[in-house]
């Protein structure tokens, strides 16, 4: 409680500001410091109370997964009376004779392929928007921004008919082809904004040296894009990992299901008495997302912040 006293974000160095003040204002300054300390305390109390509320569902979920199924319902408290690993054992067994790891592998494959698709297609398209001057660019850019606001409902039905006609249903192709064709305008937009802030002198001098656009893109722009590619990868991974509607529409055979569809089977087939296995499976499905979040929280939160400011 000694350093974070400043309420005002002034560029003063950290530490106690009082000694710098004139002695005549000592009492006043002390009272002000006391008030500031009180406010800091209040801030931490409020933030902590909020954190408890926000985290409660997550913590409750994890702890419930260790509870015997019969104990989950009717238990308000967090700390289980009895703990058990039965739920996890059952969750790992999977459902309908298909192991948890099959679903996990499917989810992982889909997420990894989405990341590759998004990084390749969106970076190339963003380069065209940010660095090449050609007729029609501003029209296409406006259309791209427009798709950001378009409800997906209007495209899923014809897409379904189309993919059904060419025989792609019950394969991963309908889920992935859009990722390789930069249909996630959010990522294109994020990358365009990032590229616009890269110094142009770099490409200009490379151009004088005789490099064409492919060369400039691969050896100058792409290496500098590492931070934005990281942000896009994280989001592409998590969105694909959590996606429910598209797999629900396109996938038929249970052994190709990703985790969200496995979880849905749990809620369909098991009665309330098997809450435990449901909870354990739900926790297991979130683990990769939470690991990602803990590792890359800065990239994630900064990515969201810039998206809002430049929008």
């Amino acid at each position, binding site marked *: 409680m000694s350093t974070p006293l400043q309420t005002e974000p002034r560029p003063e160095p950290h530490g106690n500001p009082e000694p710098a003040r004139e002695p005549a204002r000592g009492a006043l300054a002390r009272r002000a410091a006391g008030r500031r300390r009180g406010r800091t305390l209040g801030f931490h109390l409020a933030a902590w109370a909020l954190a408890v509320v926000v985290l409660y569902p997550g913590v409750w979920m994890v702890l419930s997964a260790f509870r015997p199924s019969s104990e989950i319902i009717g238990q308000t408290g967090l700390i289980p009376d009895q703990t058990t690993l039965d739920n996890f054992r059952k969750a790992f067994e999977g459902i309908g004779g298909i192991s948890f790891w099959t679903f996990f592998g499917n989810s992982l494959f889909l997420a990894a392929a989405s990341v590759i698709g998004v990084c390749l297609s969106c970076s190339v398209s963003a380069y065209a928007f940010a660095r090449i001057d050609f007729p029609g660019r501003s029209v296409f850019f406006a259309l791209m921004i427009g798709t950001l606001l378009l409800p997906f409902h*209007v495209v899923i039905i014809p897409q379904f008919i189309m993919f059904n006609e060419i025989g792609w249903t019950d394969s991963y192709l309908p889920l992935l082809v859009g990722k390789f064709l930069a249909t996630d305008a959010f990522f294109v937009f994020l990358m365009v904004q990032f590229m616009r802030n890269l110094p142009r002198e770099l490409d200009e001098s490379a151009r004088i040296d005789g490099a064409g656009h492919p060369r400039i893109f691969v050896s100058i722009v792409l290496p500098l894009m590492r931070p934005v590619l990281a942000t896009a990868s994280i989001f592409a991974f998590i969105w694909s990992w959590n996606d429910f509607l598209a797999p629900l529409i396109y996938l038929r055979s249970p052994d190709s299901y990703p985790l969200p569809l496995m979880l849905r089977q749990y809620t369909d087939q098991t009665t309330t008495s098997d809450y435990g296995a449901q909870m354990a499976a739900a926790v297991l499905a979130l683990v990769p997302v939470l690991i990602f979040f803990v590792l890359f929280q800065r990239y994630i939160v900064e990515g969201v912040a810039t998206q*809002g400011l430049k929008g």
Partner: protein
Amino acid sequence: MSLSPQASRAAPKRRPGPPRSRRRTAETRAGYAFLAPWLLGFLALTAGPMIASAYLAFTDYHPIRGGSWIGLDNFDRLLDDPRFLDSVEVTATYAVVGTPIKLAAALGVAMLLNSRRRGQGTYRSLFYAPSLIGASVSVAIVWKAMFNDQGIVDDIGRFFGMSGGGWVGNPDLTLPMMILLAVWQFGAPMVIFLAGLKQIPHELYEAAQVDGAGPARRFFRITLPMLSPVLFFNLVLETINSFQIFASAFIISGGQGGPANSTLFYTLYLYQRGFGQGQLGYAAAMAWLLVIVVGIITLVFFRTSRYWVHYSGDGR
């Protein structure tokens, strides 16, 4: 790369290479080559399907039976479809009630966190976490368990004198439960508000304080106007997002939208009609209706924005 900035600035005078017109065509060709993935995706997966569903909306298309032109029949039937009207009501209530609460929570917490106190970054990440997982099936399962009969929320409610029975089975409480799930994900707009708050010049507050403006006045006269572009962005984004809720409603109601249609969100009903019953023409009509409504709402937001969104002239 080895050239110094001076050399590159001097360069345009004696630019080597082909004459201007040939350079332009080369640029154009390169532009379209680089744009190709997006352009292909846009034509094949966005623009084409949009036109196709505009046509489908006037047919009774079914994946097996095919379909034929039926004019405005789908739209006529929509207006007489009680389940459709329920889904509109549920979704509209969810958007109109949930979005302001979520944004108010986001702004409140952002203002609480907007200081250079230690731990601010940690709180910010912590509060953001629900936004990342909130739409997942896992969270829907937890939410259902928490709000079920004898779940923890039910117990807390009973403690405060509410009649028990759980929220999941009570048609009056399911929508509040879904709104709470949305409000729980206040982190994403909060992060954006926080970034906006950091851009407000601190001198403004100091000047206002010198002039004797209290906290409420400072909030309404400085914070809110300076933040209005960010507020506008959040409002548009969150409103549109709220129309798209699907996985949580599907899981919590077992795909049915019950009890008594109280969780029959627009997307869920569209799914039931289009993919459950194969009435793709009918679902396409619903989809286009939604596009038109979203378009109108966005237009209203943008048209009215000039009266309440303040853009500082210096264009920071």
